[in-house]
């Protein structure tokens, strides 16, 4: 009896200690075991009484369990509310303690993406955000280190190109100079010797052009391609470039015609550099055009700009070639490379130079219909252009010939 009660008590104790269903199941098992023991060991009457008691007890237990269920539900509810409140409190604490570091990370990422490689975040707060911050700093450190290495490499490359250019120029000066010296005494050479010297000279000049172009590109890449702009007369600039080309086009019996609109406004340019661009365009026109072809240079006003155009009667280019024509080492037709003396860098440099002047350059062509290259440069306001009355009119042949002869002397 006592044992049975005790067992029931233990069962209830267990029920309180454990989860509701578990404990209930266990209490029944324990109860049955107790009843069996009572039935075995006790007298039948006592056993019956015990069973009756047990039945009462069970009823009581059931009532108790119902109450217990209510209590437990209440407890669980209260616990839940308390837990949720606690969690909510904890969570809001978490959020506020994470928000600042996260905001800082977002801001720092923005700065880093914007190129500020020195940006770092303060590592602190929760271990998670601290880890994140440390990882961010590590990444920024690595990016900065690599950028530094890259800058160093760029500088080394620029210096190398400058040094190489200097070192190559001395021997080239000698080769070109002595070949020219030989050509001064051409009448003392056999025609075969004279031709040989001519080839040496041609190739030396080509090497010099290549060297100058590479140097310009290296400067351009390093952002060190500088111009010294000054108010410049367009007509004299164009005629200057035409004069430089005259002997070459005449040798190919090509007609080089310039047409310059009278009274053009001045442009603010580095005269030598824009002349270089024009000579480059004219050289291309000359080299790609057949013997006896016409090459035209025009200069006209287009609103607030002055447009200079060079057109040829060469093979022209298809659209897919035109797209890449201002890229390095690109030529209109790879098959023509053998005959063309250019460096393949001229148009890339021309584009850099024209853009440095705030202008634009474009090419227009169709296969079989020649090509036209147009440079547009901002015109200076009329007030800045003082004088300019001495503009030579189009095709000043006598003056050009006189100049050329003087140069060739």
């Amino acid at each position, binding site marked *: 009896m006592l044992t049975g009660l005790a067992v029931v008590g233990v069962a209830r104790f267990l029920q309180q200690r454990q989860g509701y269903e578990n404990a209930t199941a266990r209490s029944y098992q324990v109860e049955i075991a107790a009843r069996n023991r009572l039935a075995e060991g006790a007298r039948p009457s006592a056993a019956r009484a015990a069973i009756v008691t047990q039945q009462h007890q069970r009823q009581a237990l059931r009532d108790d369990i119902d109450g217990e269920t209510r209590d437990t539900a209440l407890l669980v509810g209260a616990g839940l509310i308390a837990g949720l409140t606690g969690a909510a409190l904890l969570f809001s604490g978490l959020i506020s303690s994470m928000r600042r570091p996260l905001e800082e990370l977002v801001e720092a990422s923005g700065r880093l993406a914007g190129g500020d490689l020195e940006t770092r975040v303060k590592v602190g707060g929760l271990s998670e955000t601290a880890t994140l911050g440390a990882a961010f700093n590590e990444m920024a450190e690595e990016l900065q280190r690599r950028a530094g290495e890259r800058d160093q490499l760029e500088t080394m490359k620029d210096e190398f190109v400058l040094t190489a250019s200097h070192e190559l120029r001395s021997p080239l000066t000698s080769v070109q100079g002595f070949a020219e*010296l030989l050509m001064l005494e051409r009448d003392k050479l056999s025609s075969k010797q004279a031709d040989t010297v001519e080839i040496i000279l041609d190739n030396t000049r080509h090497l010099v052009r290549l060297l100058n172009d590479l140097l310009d590109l290296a*400067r351009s890449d390093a952002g060190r391609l500088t111009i010294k702009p000054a108010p410049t007369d367009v007509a004299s600039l164009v005629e200057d470039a035409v004069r430089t080309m005259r002997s070459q086009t005449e040798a190919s019996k090509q007609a080089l015609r310039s047409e310059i609109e009278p009274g053009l406004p001045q442009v603010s340019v580095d005269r030598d550099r824009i002349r270089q661009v024009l000579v480059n365009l004219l050289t291309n026109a000359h080299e790609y055009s057949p013997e006896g072809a016409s090459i035209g240079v025009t200069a006209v006003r287009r609103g607030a700009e002055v447009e200079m155009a060079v057109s040829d009667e060469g093979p022209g280019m298809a659209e897919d070639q035109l797209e890449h024509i201002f890229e390095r080492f690109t030529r209109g037709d790879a098959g023509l490379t053998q005959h063309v003396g250019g460096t393949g860098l001229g148009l890339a440099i021309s584009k850099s130079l024209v853009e440095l002047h705030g202008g634009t350059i474009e090419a227009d062509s169709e296969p079989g219909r020649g090509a036209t290259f147009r440079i547009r440069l901002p015109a200076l306001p009329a007030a800045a252009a003082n004088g300019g009355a001495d503009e030579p009119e189009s095709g000043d042949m006598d003056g050009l010939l006189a100049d050329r002869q003087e140069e060739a002397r």
Partner: protein
Amino acid sequence: MTRVLIADDSETILLLMRTRLEMEGYEVVTATDGVEVIELMQRNDEPPPDILLLDAMMPRKSGIDALRELRAAGVETPVLIVSAHQDEMDAGAATDVEVSGYITKPIDFDRLFACIADLTRPGPA
């Protein structure tokens, strides 16, 4: 006769320049660095050069440094700086001294002769 002093650390280039200048009728004196240029300018046993052609970069003393010293000593002889390329002149910061002109390598001799003729023309320039 116009006397031209040329300074370059390359014997080959000195030979080339001397030959071309002498063919044009100039009298030529040569130096291989800036130190020699200063020494030559201090000698009194020979008439002073009418023009100097100095290589921008030379061992011991560069053309630009020699020019700076000469100008500080009151020498007003015209000076042409010969250089491999523009960057070298910019790097040499020759802006603080009076330079009559620049000649780049490879040398355009027609242009060089025109410059010399301009700078050594008698009477006011």
